[in-house]
């Protein structure tokens, strides 16, 4: 508990390895009770669970939650019967997959015949645990487009594809893309053709142009700076798909203000819009990650102006390419070499 981004980014801490299913609600109630009784009330920005955990420390927090939990258990109130867990689980059953061979001759043939399709499979299709099936990620990040935007026609098309090819199920991801969770491998090419016909086959999932951006100043009353036009410029700058593959996995997250809706703290490269005397600036962080090695990015140095920031991103990328070893991902290189090489190349000539 105690994780969160916003103006005070913090990584959540573990207070209980395992809680019995039946006690889950009671345990959460204990957490809420401790927070409600001891959380900060003097300052609305500090009225957060993460602030309480930070101030008293995770050991003390755990002790208090456990004590409260013991009291709540005496009252025996919030017991979650296993039959109720089973009732809810029934809503989340996987669909009835067909029994298929894992290898699909249709797919193998199409990959050899159609190079664009092969590129798309490489970046946008992920492995499924059921043989013969695959997961299709639909990129809503066309080059130069608004991240996450989708027209009503595109939505209709995607709904049709989901209905026909993926058990009528469509998911929206926090990375501002869509996912078809259960597509038969032999249908992948048909799905690709339909997506392509609607401008939805950009083969860039996980690559540098697959950025997360908040609405920013164009739409948001709280913003300090624009996010969308910046994301569009970065997308244009790195448009070349060969170069994107050469760069490899790289996540850029942009927020237009400290509220961090674009989760910039956990982007490999994070961009935060700041306002300095009415002028938009962009502060850049490096090394953030939302994977199993969660990390809050480090601020690389003084903020960049609107005119400088895309060049700065390019400098960061070239620096990475220069120091990476054996096809390391950006984040792994950063974890190995740290921030100094990037600071040097960004600020040395100024």
């Amino acid at each position, binding site marked *: 508990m105690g994780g969160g981004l916003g103006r005070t980014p913090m990584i959540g801490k573990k207070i209980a390895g395992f809680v019995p299913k039946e006690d889950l609600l009671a345990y959460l109630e204990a957490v809420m*009770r401790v927070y*409600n*009784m001891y959380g900060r*009330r003097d300052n*609305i920005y500090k*009225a957060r669970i993460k602030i309480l955990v930070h101030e008293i420390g995770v050991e003390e927090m755990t002790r208090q939650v456990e004590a409260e939990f013991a*009291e709540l258990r005496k*009252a025996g*109130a*919030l017991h979650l*019967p296993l*039959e*109720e867990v089973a*009732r809810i689980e029934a809503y989340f059953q996987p669909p009835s997959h067909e029994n298929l061979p894992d290898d699909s001759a249709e797919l193998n043939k199409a990959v050899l015949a159609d190079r664009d399709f092969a590129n798309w499979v490489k970046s946008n299709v992920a492995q499924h645990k059921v043989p013969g099936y695959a997961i299709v990620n639909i990129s809503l990040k066309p080059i130069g487009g608004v991240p996450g935007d989708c027209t009503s026609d595109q939505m209709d098309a995607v709904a049709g594809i989901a209905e026909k090819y993926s058990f009528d199920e469509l998911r929206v991801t926090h990375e501002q893309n869509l996912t078809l969770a259960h597509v038969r491998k032999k249908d992948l090419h048909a799905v690709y053709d339909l997506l392509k016909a609607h401008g939805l086959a950009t083969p860039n999932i996980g690559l540098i142009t697959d950025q997360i951006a908040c609405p920013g100043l164009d739409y948001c009353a709280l913003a300090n700076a624009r996010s969308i036009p910046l994301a569009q410029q970065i997308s244009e700058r790195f448009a070349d798909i060969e170069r994107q593959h050469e760069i490899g996995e790289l996540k850029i997250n942009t927020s237009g203000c400290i509220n961090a809706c674009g989760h910039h703290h956990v982007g490999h490269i994070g961009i935060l819009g700041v306002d300095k005397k009415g002028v938009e600036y962009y502060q850049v962080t490096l090394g953030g990650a939302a994977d199993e090695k969660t990390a809050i990015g480090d601020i690389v140095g003084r903020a960049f102006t609107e005119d400088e920031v895309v060049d700065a991103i390019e400098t960061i990328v070239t620096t990475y390419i220069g120091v990476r070893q054996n096809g390391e991902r950006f984040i792994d290189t950063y974890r190995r070499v740290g921030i100094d090489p990037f600071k040097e190349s960004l600020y040395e000539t100024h």
Partner: protein
Amino acid sequence: MKLIRNGTFVEDDFITVGDGDQLPDGAAIVSLERWQAERETLRARNAPIGVRLQSGQEPGAIADDLDRIDLVALEFPIYRNGRAYSYARILRERYGFKGEVRAVGNVLRDQFQFMIRCGFDALEVTDNITPEIWAENAGSFSLFYQPSVDGKKTVLSLRQRLAARARENATA
């Protein structure tokens, strides 16, 4: 200020007294500080006594005295400070307090029902609150997921009862 007790608008029979004020003959509510300083004299009076806890003053401070206290007033200094909800539940569930638990301070209409659920049986409200407004807000939700002090049946138990009935019908 108006007082609503068990859903009825009533005259307040308690007088809240300041720490330096002289005690009235009848029922009185004092601060925690005054209670702690004058416990014995206050107990010896032949009139009901209440203690008012501010946000941050936990019910544990009067846990041992509760059998001699008729009323606990819990303060909401501002609507977004919900500590008194926890205090009310602790008074009722942990300490089994049977006297009046009164909500005072920034008591807003959209929170009436939550206060009742947490064990408040009296609320001090602003003068613009009418019986109609009370009725509308105190009953705005008809079903509850979370079990609480008010003993209301939860959605889960209603579901279980329905399932049991369906089973009975199936075998009948």
